[in-house]
Structures are given as structure tokens and as C-alpha cells.
């Protein structure tokens, strides 16, 4: 049943987010081509100042469009969760022969997938704009050469240690992304349970309340466990950074940071679990759809 829930949640989000991403990609392409065209036209007419100004203006417009798209993605994910569970649609969702945990998993997985898709699309758009708009100049070619050189070096050094770093980084991003989504979900659920007339407003209020609770928990965790973890990193002062042993220094740095890194991942994962089960509890035991 989870796969069916994911199918319909993904369909509901894609209906709005797919055109949004297509619009972002289209706007980026138009902005990039316009930039290249204006720069070429005005540069050839010896009017470099105007070209720079227009280019800057297009860059600003594109940045604003990307920020708007980010907000739209965030808003649509929250609105879908709220509409599907806390409004009349909830009568359908909660009478399906599925577990509440499956409903939450479906909402979480689709939200994470669409966030990742949006980040990739927006990242590629930015890369296209920066890359193509600077490609004509020597700076652009130099930039690309440096990036490809860095990537080549990175892959050359790729070993078990670097695989671990990549794995940790991916895991860290995933648990933090899950927390940021579950945090919003929990706030919306509690807001919907507590208030019958101003559910969204209550949800926003509870978002900040949960943030404060999480900050207190983080401070307590750092107070009790932080000092022992930082000890290892302090020891890094003895490592001499020079081109000859930079790999060794990097390895030592990574090794020293391991406990802190895993503690952060574990702590965030615990927050994920907490938010998930609290949301499940409130949806199962306390929610009364009006």
C-alpha cells in the first residue's frame, strides 16, 4: 500500500512542481541566452558598461526567480500535507485501509524526493547560467579547467576513506532534510489538533515552539557529550599542513571528526524518529476532522 500512497502523493505534487521546475529551467535558459546575446551585441558596439549592467540585471532576475521557486516548492509540499490530512480530504486519507505510519512515510518520501529534484534542477540552472555566461571569456574557461582538475584529483584520491566521507555526507543531508520536513509536519499536525479555527496559524506557532525545544535538546546534548567529542579535533593542532602530507592531514582531520559527525547524524536521526512518532500519535489519537 505504501507504493500506492507514494504514487498518488507524487502525482499530486508533480502536478504543480513539474511545471514549476520546467518554468525555472526555461527562465534560466532565456536569462542565459539573453545574457550572452546582450553581452555580444554591446561588447561589439564598444558599450561594455551597458552590457555589464544588463547582465547583472538578468542575473538578479534569475536569482529572484530561483528564490521564488524554492519558496514555491516549500509551500506546495506543506500545502499538500495540510490539505491531504487536515482538511476534508483527510476523511478519505484516514479511512483508507493503510497504517498512519505508511501515510506519513509516503508524505516524507515524496517531499524528500521533490526537494532533491528541485535542488538538482536549480543547481543545474545556476551552473548553466554561470557556466555559459562566463564561457565566452577566459575566466570561464579557467573556471571550468579548475573544476575539472579538482574533480580529477578527487577521483584519483578516491579510496575507502573518501567513500566513507561521501557516504557520511549523503547520510547527513538525508537525515537533516528529513528533520526539516518532519519538523513542519509535526507543527501542522499539532496546530490542527489544538486549534479548530486557526489551524495554520497555530501550526506556525508550534513550528517555533518545536524549534525552541530542539535548540534546548541540542544544547543539553552538546553540554554532556560535546567536550569529549571536541577533544579529538583539538588534537589536530599538531598536524602540519603542507603540500607533502596534505592527504595524511585530511585523513587525520576526517578521523578526528568522526565521533562528532556520527553523533550529529545520530542526534538528528533521533529527532526524526521523535517528530515522526509524535505526528503519528497526534494523527491517530487526537485528530478530530471537523
Amino acid at each position, binding site marked *: 500500500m505504501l507504493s500506492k500512497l507514494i504514487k498518488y502523493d507524487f502525482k499530486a505534487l508533480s502536478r504543480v512542481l513539474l511545471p514549476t521546475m520546467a518554468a525555472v529551467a526555461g527562465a534560466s535558459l532565456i536569462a542565459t541566452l539573453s545574457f550572452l546575446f546582450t553581452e555580444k551585441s554591446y561588447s561589439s558596439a564598444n558599450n561594455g558598461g551597458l552590457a555589464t549592467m544588463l547582465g547583472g540585471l538578468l542575473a538578479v532576475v534569475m536569482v529572484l526567480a530561483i528564490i521564488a521557486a524554492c519558496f514555491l516548492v516549500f509551500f506546495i509540499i506543506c500545502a499538500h500535507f495540510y490539505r491531504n490530512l487536515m482538511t476534508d480530504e483527510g476523511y478519505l486519507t*484516514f479511512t483508507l485501509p493503510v497504517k498512519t505510519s505508511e501515510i506519513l512515510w509516503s508524505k516524507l518520501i515524496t517531499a524528500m524526493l521533490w526537494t532533491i529534484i528541485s535542488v538538482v534542477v536549480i543547481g543545474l540552472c545556476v551552473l548553466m547560467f554561470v557556466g555559459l555566461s562566463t564561457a565566452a571569456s577566459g575566466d570561464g574557461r579557467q573556471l571550468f579547467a579548475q573544476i575539472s582538475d579538482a574533480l580529477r584529483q578527487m577521483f584519483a584520491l578516491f579510496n575507502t576513506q573518501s567513500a566513507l566521507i561521501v557516504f557520511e555526507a549523503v547520510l547527513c543531508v538525508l537525515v537533516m532534510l528529513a528533520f526539516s520536513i518532519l519538523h513542519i509536519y509535526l507543527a501542522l499536525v499539532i496546530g490542527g489538533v489544538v486549534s479548530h479555527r486557526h489551524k495554520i496559524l497555530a501550526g506556525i506557532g508550534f513550528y517555533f515552539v518545536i524549534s525552541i525545544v530542539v535548540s534546548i535538546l541540542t544544547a543539553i546534548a552538546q553540554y554532556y557529550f560535546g567536550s569529549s567529542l571536541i577533544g579529538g579535533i583539538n588534537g589536530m593542532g599538531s598536524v602540519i599542513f603542507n603540500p607533502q602530507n596534505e592527504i595524511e592531514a585530511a585523513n587525520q582531520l576526517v578521523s578526528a571528526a568522526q565521533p562528532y559527525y556520527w553523533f550529529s547524524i545520530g542526534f538528528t536521526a533521533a529527532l526524526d524518529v521523535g517528530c515522526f512518532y509524535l505526528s503519528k500519535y497526534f494523527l491517530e489519537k487526537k485528530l*478530530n476532522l471537523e
Partner: protein
Amino acid sequence: MSATLECRDLKKSYGPNMALSGLNIELPAGKIIGLLGPNGSGKTTLIKLACGLLTPTEGEIKVCGQQPGTESKALVSYLPERTYLPQWMTVTDCMDYFQDFYPDFDYQRAVSMLESLHVPAKARMKTLSKGTKEKVQLVLVMSRRAKLYLLDEPIGGVDPAARDYILNTIISNYCEDSTILISTHLIADIEKVLDEFIFIQNGQIVSYASTDALREDKGKSVDEYFREVFRC
């Protein structure tokens, strides 16, 4: 054989307000039963508890011997008094949705009923009138081969001409081993299809009897008896 719906000392309170106070009832299979009572008597709360939208404060409620949960939800076909289908879906999307989640959904029956009611299958829910949305919902709910149908105000929003079709649909589409519980204020319209009726007030059963027995014993229709019992 266990009752289709069974309540034992069922209580539900919303803060200090008691919606159901120690309700006991057993509904048999193969009956169309009217759940009738004045506003705020606990009808919708009982239905929500039976389909797992609410949890009891005390006591227990069982559907075919099972407490509300994933298994019981597969046996219950619920029609709320709200329009609960996603507005972005087309009527066909809604049928696909029901077919995906309910193994007992009869797709062909739904198509046939929608055609009889002249509901356009390609139309999006948001473009339909309130009455047509209610027809779509009722068709979807009655196209399931469920054990218990819970219909909360099924004919409240449709025109009188469509009411007869809907009531015929209800009678002709349920199996003999199923139970239909209908909550409504339009008693005169539905009483011809009722086998039994339940009067509920202040969260307690006031009367539970067969409509034939009422006519024979008291010589009254359910509507007349309702007005007598709940006279203001």
C-alpha cells in the same frame, strides 16, 4: 457470527463535552438501518468511531469482530457529509484511486452508475457542482462490496429527482451479508428503504426497532414517531 457493528459501553468526550455516553448496540448483517437523532446527538461521532477517524474515550467498538484499524477499514465503506475527493482529480482518477486501495471496488459498476447519473468521467472534481460531487462520492462508496456502509447524510445535497435514484442505488447495490447505516435528517425520504431505525439523543440510544414493528404496533411512520419523540 459476530455483529457487523458492535459497541460496548462506548464513550467519547471532547474535553468536558460528552458526545457518546456508554452506548451499547449490536447491528446485524443484511439490514438497512437509519441512525436518526437531533443535531448534536452523537450520530456523526458514532460513525467516525466506526470508521476509525476517532478513538473511543472508553469502551469498545468493533466492526465484524475487529477493532477499528487497517483490517476494519477494508471492510467499511464510508460516505462523509463533506466532499472529500481531491479537487484536482478527474472522476476517472477517483475511480482509479478507489480501485487501487479497495480490492472490493467494482469498477464496471461505478462506470455504469456514473453514466446513469450523466456524470462526465473526464471532468475534474473542482468543476462539478456540489450535488454532482456528492453523486460521485456515493457512486464510489456504493460500488464497493463492503461489509458495513456508513452513509452520513447521503442525500442532503442532491435534488429530489436524484434522491430516488440514489435510494434505489443503495437498495440494489448492497449484498445480503452487508449492513448499511444511514444518518440523515431527511427521514421521510429514506424511511421507505429502512429495515430498522435507531433513535439517538445525548449520546445514548433512545430507541432501536424495526420499521415494520413500528408501523404495526404504533401505526406510525418513522418520521411521525421521530417528531413525537424529539418534539421541542
